[in-house]
């Protein structure tokens, strides 16, 4: 996932992506992000059966994901990791040589799906809930098995020249 870099090009948080060759992405941050997505959707999904206002979590999550895609400083779950979980040693960092763009793209895609789901939640709750659950399932698959559908779509778009390789 793209991360803020300082003016000098140094990553603000060690283990986050930098502009240097041999970019490193902290996969623990990605895992926390995916856990946050799965947990939020599940709470909204199951909780709304008893208390419907909990559905508001879906548009809120869409906003969090989209904001996090375009302004990584506002990525709630990742900031939770970098500001709280990592400094306190609750979650250990797992830096991996990787590109942040595909993960960022996947997150943005999740955000778009949740935004569309939010539109459907009131008039067609089944569609809204199904789309939200689909995002949670894909986040879970990424969390548990490391398969990132959004990253595969990114690869296809890059290969077809829709996205330019950086």
């Amino acid at each position, binding site marked *: 996932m793209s991360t803020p870099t300082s003016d000098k090009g140094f990553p603000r948080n060690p283990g986050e992506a930098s502009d240097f060759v041999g970019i490193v992405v902290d*996969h623990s941050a990605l895992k926390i992000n995916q856990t946050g997505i799965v947990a939020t959707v599940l709470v909204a999904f199951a909780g709304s059966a008893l208390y419907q206002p909990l559905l508001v979590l879906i548009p809120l999550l869409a906003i969090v994901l989209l904001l996090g895609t375009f302004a990584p400083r506002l990525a709630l779950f990742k900031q939770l990791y970098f500001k709280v979980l990592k400094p306190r040693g609750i979650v250990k960092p797992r830096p991996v040589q*990787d*590109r942040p763009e*595909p993960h960022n793209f996947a997150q943005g895609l999740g955000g778009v799906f949740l935004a569309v789901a939010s539109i459907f939640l009131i008039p067609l709750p089944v569609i809204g*809930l199904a789309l939200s659950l*689909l995002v949670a399932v894909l986040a879970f698959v990424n969390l548990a098995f*490391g398969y990132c559908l959004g*990253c595969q779509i990114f690869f296809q778009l*890059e290969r077809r020249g829709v996205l330019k390789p950086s």
Partner: protein
Amino acid sequence: MSAQLWALAVVGIMVLAAAGLEALRARRARRRVLGSGPSDLARHLPMNREELRARDPYILYFTGEGCTVCRTHQDPALARLGDVRVDKVDAVAERGLADRFHVYMLPTTVVMAADGHALHVNYGYAPAPKLERQLAEARRTALTATA
């Protein structure tokens, strides 16, 4: 039935349908690759004649900078294979070669015979035991052909 249960059913059907389509797609791509003749790899990859003559099968490994599974899973699995030649190919940069092997997802590993025939194609992560099995089978085939 409540909206939640309907949504659950819809997602279940979608996941099953996606898994089925993915399996079909992989099977079709695999059939196309395995059905074609020896690939003209020498045109794409730097290989010397000794390497081409070598009897041992090798692995063509399609990867990319953005492929996380490649780094976290596939690279270690290939490292566990020991003394096996692995030709790493950037699927985005080497588009022609990627198309030749119908690479639609990363990682993709192809077990190649020394003559350039594709023997096994794995779309997605292939664990070390699976690759070892495929390599052993390829070696047996090569031995039979030599005999």
